């Protein structure tokens, strides 16, 4: 394809350059408008052409036009194709990489940043291939050969014409280079304005609750005002430059004409040649000015390319070993042996943690924010790798098995349930796209969400997310439970940090959870007293260490950190339950 586009490029430029020359030839030779010196030494202008020559000239002109059309078409299309294909490859690479990069990467990366790389920067690179590389070659060939032809036809007029090229090219480059930061500034302002607008619209309830309409209007007006001043400043800047470039070009036509006429009078030039010159100049106007534009694209592509490759080349700290074997889970025993973990060297998150979860056990993790609970559950599916120690599932080190087999065997229900913009059905079978409708329904029933789904107008085909039904937190959590049930994992992680949902939802989640945990080794980051009480082991964590370990009753008696947490955060639930029991409210 590269070869084809170069061929098309050469053909297109050659024939483009030929056109004015052929027109000049048709006028001078075909029509034979000749200013010559006759015998008496006088200059006369005569028409000396004949039909034969004129037809030849016209035939050439027509052939050149058709040929040029074909080449220009091929060249434009191929350049676009090259650029688009490259952008396509880049997007796939970025997508693939982003999916494979571990949590450590995604924790730091901001989604806005990633998106701007995947969109604007890829576009920048595409423009570079299309406009920068191919177009630039075309422009350079065109400009060089056209002016070369003009200078060789008539050095004086040709040089006069050429004098304007650097002037226009330099001015155009300066303008685009200076405009770029201004444009970025304006884009930034537009972003700020959109932000104020979006916040105002999404936060309308708050705005109304505090009657802050006027305040918001001032905020917005300040932004649109800034935007006005900045945009108008740019407009003023461009108001000079664009006309200047146009004016210079018209000036070059005028000066070339002037000098050309003098040359014709001196007998050094023909009318056809002058016409050809004027046509060349008309033809060159856009290419010469686009030099500035192209230089700008170079500058942009340089930084854009670097940013794109930053993603494509990013290495995940969690890599599969070359000789990794699939994980075989028979029983579901999980062991943490002397596991330490830190994000950066000076702040350890986990310090020498040992955990043994017997097959089918429920392990509850309890502790304040930042105590390391989440890290424990994130290390198991290798979202991160421990800095020290090892984690074994049925005796196999998680770093020795394939990532796919590891993660398929571990089901995770996150605290912040992420649903995709798709039907509820597709969300439930997200982990197993081949699941039958019956399986989906069975999972939804076990997750206690089936009845709710059925009540929706489109049932399982109801869309969730932005444009569909808005699900409550509890409903989302149950969809996530159904999604995990369908995977039928041997090991389960449930991050349940949400404090209070309404009583009905709480009840349903409890039921769903019980179905989910049955027969699986489960790690629960727990907030609900009921879950904690029913756990086989409670691990109480503080500052990256397990400070207490045991079951509810003996931990309560021990009067340590668990007791404190219980008194502060769990007792309320217990008392309420107790009062219900005392009143004999249980059927």
């Amino acid at each position, binding site marked *: 394809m590269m070869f084809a586009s170069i061929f098309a490029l050469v053909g297109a430029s050659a024939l483009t350059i030929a056109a004015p020359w052929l027109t000049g030839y048709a006028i001078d030779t075909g029509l034979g408008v000749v200013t010559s010196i006759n015998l008496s030494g006088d200059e006369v202008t005569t028409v000396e052409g004949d039909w034969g020559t004129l037809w030849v000239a016209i035939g050439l002109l027509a052939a050149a036009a058709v040929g040029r059309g074909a080449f220009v078409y091929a060249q434009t299309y191929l350049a676009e194709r090259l650029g688009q294909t490259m952008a396509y490859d880049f997007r796939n690479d970025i997508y693939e990489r982003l999916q494979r990069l571990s949590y450590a990467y995604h924790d730091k990366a901001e989604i806005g940043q990633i998106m701007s790389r995947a969109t604007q920067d890829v576009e920048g690179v595409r423009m570079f291939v299309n406009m920068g590389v191919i177009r630039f070659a075309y422009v350079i060939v065109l400009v060089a050969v056209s002016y070369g032809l003009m200078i060789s036809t008539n050095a004086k007029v040709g040089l006069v014409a050429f004098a304007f090229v650097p002037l226009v090219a330099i001015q155009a480059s300066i303008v685009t280079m200076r405009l770029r930061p201004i444009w970025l500034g304006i884009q930034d302002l537009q972003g700020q304005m959109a932000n104020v607008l979006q916040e105002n619209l999404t936060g309308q309830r708050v705005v109304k609750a505090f009657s802050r309409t006027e305040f918001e209007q001032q905020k917005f007006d300040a932004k649109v005002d800034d935007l006005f001043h900045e945009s108008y400043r740019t407009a003023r800047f461009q108001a000079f430059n664009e006309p200047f470039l146009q004016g210079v070009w018209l000036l070059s036509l005028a000066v070339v004409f002037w000098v050309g006429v003098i040359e014709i009078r001196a007998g050094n030039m023909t009318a056809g040649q002058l016409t050809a010159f004027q046509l060349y100049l008309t033809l060159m106007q856009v290419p010469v000015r686009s030099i500035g534009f192209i230089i700008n694209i170079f500058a942009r592509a340089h930084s854009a390319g670097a940013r794109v490759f930053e993603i494509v080349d990013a290495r995940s700290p969690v890599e599969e070993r070359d000789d990794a074997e699939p994980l075989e889970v028979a029983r579901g025993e999980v062991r943490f042996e002397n596991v330490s973990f830190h994000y950066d060297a000076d702040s350890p998150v986990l310090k020498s943690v040992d955990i043994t979860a017997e097959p089918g056990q429920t392990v509850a993790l309890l502790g304040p924010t930042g105590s390391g609970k989440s890290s424990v559950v994130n290390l198991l599916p290798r979202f991160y790798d421990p800095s020290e120690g090892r984690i074994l599932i049925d005796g196999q080190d998680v770093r020795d098995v394939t990532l796919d087999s590891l993660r398929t065997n571990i089901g995770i229900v996150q605290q912040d349930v992420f649903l995709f913009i798709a039907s509820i059905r597709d969300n439930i079978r997200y982990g197993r796209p081949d699941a039958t409708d019956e399986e989906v329904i069975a999972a939804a029933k076990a997750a206690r969400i089936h009845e709710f789904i059925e009540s929706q107008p489109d049932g399982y085909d109801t869309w969730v997310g932005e444009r569909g039904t808005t699900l*409550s937190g509890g409903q989302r959590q149950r969809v996530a439970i159904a999604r995990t049930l369908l995977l039928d994992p041997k090991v389960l992680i449930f991050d349940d940090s949400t404090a209070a949902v309404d009583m009905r939802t709480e009840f349903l989640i409890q039921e769903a959870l019980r179905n989910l945990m049955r027969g699986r080794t489960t790690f629960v980051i727990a907030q609900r007293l009921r879950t904690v009480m029913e756990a086989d082991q409670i691990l109480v964590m503080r500052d990256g260490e397990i400070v207490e370990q045991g079951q509810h009753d003996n931990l309560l008696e021990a009067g340590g950190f668990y007791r404190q947490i219980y008194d502060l955060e769990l007792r309320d639930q217990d008392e309420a339950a107790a009062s219900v029991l005392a009143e004999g409210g249980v059927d």
Partner: protein
Amino acid sequence: MAYWGGGGAGGWSGGIGGQRGGRGAQVDMTNRRGIDGWDYDELGKVYDTALIGRLIPFITPHKWRAIIALIATVTLSITSYAPPFIMALALERIIDAVAADTPESLDQAVADTQFYGLLLVGLAALMFVAAMVQRLMTGYIGHHLLRDLRSMMFGHLNKLSLSFYDREEVGRIMSRVTSDVVTLQELMTSGFLNVLSDILGLTIIIIAVYLLDPVLATVSLAVIPFLFIFMVVWQRYAARAFIRVRQAIAIVNANINENVSGVRVVQSMVREETNLEHFDNLNEQNRQMNLDAAKLQASVMPLVEILSTVATIFVLLVIGLRAFDGALTGAEAGSLALGFTLYIQRFFNPVRDIVLQYTMLQRAMAGAHRIFEVLDTEPEIVDPPGATVLDDVEGRVDFEHVKFSYIEGVPVLRDFDLHVEPGESIALVGHTGAGKTSVTALVNRSYDIQGGRILVDGHDLTTIERASLTRRMSVVLQEPYLFSGTIRENIRYGRLDASDEDVENAARAVGADEFIEQLNEGYDTVLHERGQNLSVGQRQLISFARALVAEPRILILDEATATVDTHTEQIIQRALATMLKGRTSFVIAHRLSTIRSADRIVVMRAGEIVEIGNHDELMAADGVYADLYRMTFTQAGSEDVLTEEAASARR
């Protein structure tokens, strides 16, 4: 750009009573949704008198600038399209003068050369000035217009009641304020003048070529209709192709965005392969759409050039015919050839522009239509003329037989009657959809009711200036909503004249001071978009402080602790007693201790009060409340609960 659009619509908008406005009054804006929930890219009528009439007032303040821009445009057209005519004229005279070869004629030739040369240089200068003036004027008018339109739309949007926001997606409203106004501005400034200058340009070309030579003019102009037809047909396909390109890339970007946001689920569910396959598909579709568009784009120049070559050939042939017959002198032949070939080169631009502007006109009309749709939406809640301004609020709230529905025919509150003493705390209890949130939303007149009255301190809400009421009323919602800016600014949002000390006192009172002071920048910590750099719990603490700094007489807590972590909840629990003390309050909560501590508990079902009283009274009554209370701790009635949820969702 589509990737952030509507991204912020989450949270409260769908949460009101669990009922999303679906059917009903919003016929206006429901159709024409694009793939990403935005408005379809569409083409409207080219000329809509009513719309144009409404646009004129926006231009009138700038009429002098507009007139100057008009004059500059005319000048610009003349200066850019006259030169070939002058060159042809000059060439003929000069060649003739040289050919005559007398001393006078040679002098004349020198003078002519100077004259025409200077004329062309002068035209270049004039063109420069005219173009500059035109751009300055249109730039000024255009950006002014943008500012005014946007500010006006923003003001209007803020007047619209919450019911508008319940049914509209933020992304769509956004695109009207951000991009539709730009299309309109382009139309009203450069768009209009460009069409004018193109029409002028074509006219000048036609006049000039007819002055040069009528026969040649007719021959060469014969290609213009073909050029027009070709461009119109081309444009029809191209407009569609470009819309498809925009849609395709929007889908691709939305997919990347979603996948990155959900990357944790993707990895834990081992969906990488499937997703990549799907993405590859979308990506390839996008490439294909682009290539289709590229084919169309690549075809323009070649065809145009072939057409102009045809014209050139005709001109040369006709000149040849007449020159070989001796009907033309060499000078005439040369100068005509020059003039015509240059003009033929210039045909194309105005023709192309006119066709392109036609499409732009269509898009601008569609944009204008959408803008006026927003501006024409009547605010449902407005202060009546001579509204009572409350100097202070004592805090008595009376609901008198209130009837309310979001959607006609689907009642949310039926005959709701409740009288709250100043300083009393009311807990609202009931299932989702029972109407609890609606009660709280009505107290500050977020919606108007369909029957009965709501009184604050004995004044009917519809007679009070709303701002004077909300000044002494605060709300904390389930989803903490913060604005960009510092923590201090966010707390001060509750009362703009609060001193730094007031802000810090409020933070201390709700227990937010502890974490704020641990931040490096303390109260001056800048929040990222909607406070994403804080935990939900921390954000909620700030919104509590914001509510408190307003020194409200009436306080509404709508499931304010439902999404926070237990640690934050503890902090809030501790602060609650001080917050509620001496204030009329409406509390929706799940925490039993909170409900128990209320002066009165209002148990609601299907928009009606079924029980009312304090905790002990209600437990003793052993009714709905006692059932609800027990349910959390028993496993009984699973099926009931499921069907009940389904039933309330159905409503």
